[in-house]
């Protein structure tokens, strides 16, 4: 493996970790918060809800047999 690929793998493992869906979900939730924050609707509740959903989802996947 080239050094660049090794560095990329290290950064991926360091930041994203075992489940990429969590990182992708966080990015989507932040984007949604930013979009809703430009309207008159309160946007603070989106991220806590997303965190609960993402954590439940990733734990459910990890806890599945096999």
């Amino acid at each position, binding site marked *: 493996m080239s050094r660049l690929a090794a560095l990329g793998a290290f950064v991926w493992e360091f930041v994203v970790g075992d489940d990429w869906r969590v990182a992708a979900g966080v990015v989507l939730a932040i984007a949604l918060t930013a979009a809703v*924050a430009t309207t008159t609707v309160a946007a603070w509740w*989106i991220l806590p809800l997303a965190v609960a959903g993402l954590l439940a989802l990733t734990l459910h996947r990890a806890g599945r047999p096999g």
Partner: protein
Amino acid sequence: MSATDVGLVLAVGLACAVEAVEALTIVLAVGLTRSWRSTLTGAAVALVVLAAVTAALGTAVTTLPLNALRVGVGGLLLVFGLQWLRKAILRASHIKALHDESEIYARERAAAAAAGRPAGARDAYSFTIAFKGVFLEGLEVVFIVLTFGANQHRIGLAAAAAGVAVLLVVVAGVAIRGPLARVPENAMKFGVGVMLTSFGTFWSAEGAGAHWPGSDAALLVLIPAVLVFALACVAALSRRAPAAVEPLETALTT
């Protein structure tokens, strides 16, 4: 000291103590088995490289606009925090093996002994293992110090909390001259996961333009809410694996 400062000191101190326990386990195992001189040199070089990285990144991070910093760094912190919390919950519910410093220490000592004796005064194996251990664990410390410190404009306070935590762990490790197996590392990781997730949620939402009810006081609700949810996840997952279940308190403190 405000509530967010206390949260910052607790989160950074706990996270850095956990990382320091892991790095110290590796350094002690290699140092006691092979060459103290090369091991300590490797650890010292790693600390110098980390200091350089911190100085370079710290300057860059503090020049960013606050909202961009909060959304970017808060998001990273949230992803990082969810990783910690996921592992801690899986360990507490026995789906993943508990982090055992005694076992890691024994494994590192066996690997160091099997790698052959150093040929001269310098031992490349000891140097490399100590460097990697201290650098990789230290990188997490740097990341946490910079993210918490920059967001609160309290890099000095975050660095001081990290320094005290690392110093306490090193003093304890040197006094014991063995793995810090009695440190409730899994419970500490659980606590760090809760703090990183809570602060990451708070800052990234603020950076994205959301306004929290009660402003900074929202953290006083957010942190216990994340903790309760995480404990509920442990309870739910533990019910799925009845053969391996221990009482929740035992699982978190072993």
